[in-house]
């Protein structure tokens, strides 16, 4: 078992998400940065969908009862094992009674700690992800607190030993984030000037950003006529909503499944991890891309992930 020595800023249990229930108003939740999450599980020798610990901004600290193989990917939170720095984007053994400590983030903002066997919390509708707003899933539906004890599961995908991810597979996080986006479904509600503004301006990430989404500040995006609201319809991961104040809001893991705001475009799936690592004050720019380009990017990423998964 693993004991939480310090809880960090916002630490939750997440997996690939609670898919299949958006028709019932159930958000997907799950790891914000799917790339770092998947890599952490692969390096730890876990099944694709194993539950991990997601840390935000300032990381948590844990004491391990037994020796465990763990992996850390994502933002660099200056991890230390027994006082010695660990390598980010790698797997390594934590010895019996070992203490793994994480601190303030140096780049990015979300880090993933995977333990071989996965974090064992009850499944809720097939997922171990935490949706804190409705107190569903994960560790009692909430963020971890000092003293919380976590159990490790038995299942794992493959024999695994300490490994480092090749540097070309490590995602770099910069304070200037370029997000590729596909126009639609309500792009026709906006003037061509508005769309040009959207793709040529620089937006700043505001502090009102969390797992629900990123609120941006910058040149307003205005609709034809007065109303940009629509009859409420479904909203998916990466949707860029434009409410009446013209400020873009990009929805992420914990987003509401339906909303009455116009959606000018969708961030492509492969760029969501980079968005999930953006911090308050970072700059965002949007680039218009086609569906074909988005799918190509997806295929490329899948190839990388599968190559890493096949190696031992």
């Amino acid at each position, binding site marked *: 078992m693993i004991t939480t020595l310090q809880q960090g800023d916002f630490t939750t249990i997440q997996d690939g998400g609670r898919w299949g229930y958006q028709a019932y108003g159930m958000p997907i939740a799950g790891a914000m940065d799917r790339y770092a999450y998947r890599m952490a599980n692969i390096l730890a020798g876990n099944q694709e969908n194993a539950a991990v610990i997601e840390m935000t901004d300032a990381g948590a600290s844990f004491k391990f009862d037994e020796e465990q193989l763990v992996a850390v990917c994502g933002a660099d939170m200056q991890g230390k094992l027994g006082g010695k720095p660990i390598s980010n984007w790698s797997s390594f053994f934590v010895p019996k009674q070992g203490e793994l400590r994480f601190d303030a983030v140096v780049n990015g903002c979300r880090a993933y700690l995977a333990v071989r066997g996965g974090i064992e919390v009850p499944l809720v509708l097939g997922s171990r992800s935490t949706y804190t707003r409705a107190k569903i899933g994960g560790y009692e539906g909430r963020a971890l607190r000092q003293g919380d004890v976590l159990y490790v599961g038995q299942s794992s995908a493959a024999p695994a030993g300490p490994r480092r991810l090749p540097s070309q597979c490590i995602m770099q996080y910069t304070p200037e984030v370029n997000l590729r986006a596909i126009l639609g479904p309500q792009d026709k509600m906006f003037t061509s000037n508005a769309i040009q503004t959207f793709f040529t301006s620089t937006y700043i990430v505001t502090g009102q950003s969390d797992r629900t989404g990123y609120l941006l500040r910058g040149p307003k995006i205005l609709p034809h006529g007065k109303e940009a609201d629509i009859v*409420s319809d479904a909203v998916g991961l990466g949707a860029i909503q434009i409410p009446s104040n013209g400020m873009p809001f990009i929805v992420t893991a914990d987003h509401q499944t339906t909303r009455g705001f116009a959606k000018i475009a969708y961030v492509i799936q492969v760029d969501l991890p980079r968005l999930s690592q953006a911090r308050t004050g970072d700059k965002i720019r949007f680039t218009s891309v086609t569906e074909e380009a988005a799918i190509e990017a997806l295929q490329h990423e899948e190839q990388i992930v599968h190559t890493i998964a096949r190696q031992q």
Partner: protein
Amino acid sequence: MNVFPQDIKLQMAGEYGLVIELGAVISPDINALVLQLTRLLLENNRCGILEVVPTYRSVTVYFDPLLLSREALTELIQKLLGQLQPQEIGCLPSRVVYIPVCYGGVLGPDLDFVAKYTGLSAREVVTAHTAKPYLVYMLGFTPGFPYLGGLPEKLVVPRQETPRNKVPAGSVGIGGNQTGFYPIESTGEWWLIGRTPLKAFDPQRSNPFLVAAGDYVQFVDIGIDDYFTIRRDVTAGVYRLEVVTCNKGREGE
């Protein structure tokens, strides 16, 4: 037969989403088409479809573009659109879910305000609210929260200007021309006229969600004693939900 094909729009929602807009307004007829298309898609069970989300007047399909191409999905949807039929007038509702509500008093602190605003007595407000079933157009906002249609004109009360910070879970309210209940504690702008001891979402239940899009909700007036009895049963997991199913060529619950 085709159903007003010129009103139907197919839109892209990212590389993994396809939206089928079946109309422009909130109406039971358009919603019936939304429900039909949703059910046809779910029955078809095409590999690569991740989710089918019905809303007021569109169906959104989320799919894995590496498993299923948009062309193939579009072809399937066009085939299914050809199978849609306008809802027959007088067709009985498919599933009516009875939701017990204790009105007024501590559990419905705004009932008297609503009575005063509408010019009805508190009893008349309750009678009007429980008079007939409300269509569940869709779920959203929070797990299990139903968007209900059909609130009687005489019960319409503009939403609160200053929302309450804490609306208790189960609170039944009216706001504008909407009615419904809050599945979880949250902020809220509705006038609270009562409370239901039922949980809109309960992962322990065999059917975790109380209602689904296309169901009807019938509120039932109960006393405070029944409220607590039912609440105990709900917590113990032994409460039996009252549901009436219409068998018009479809399976019962």
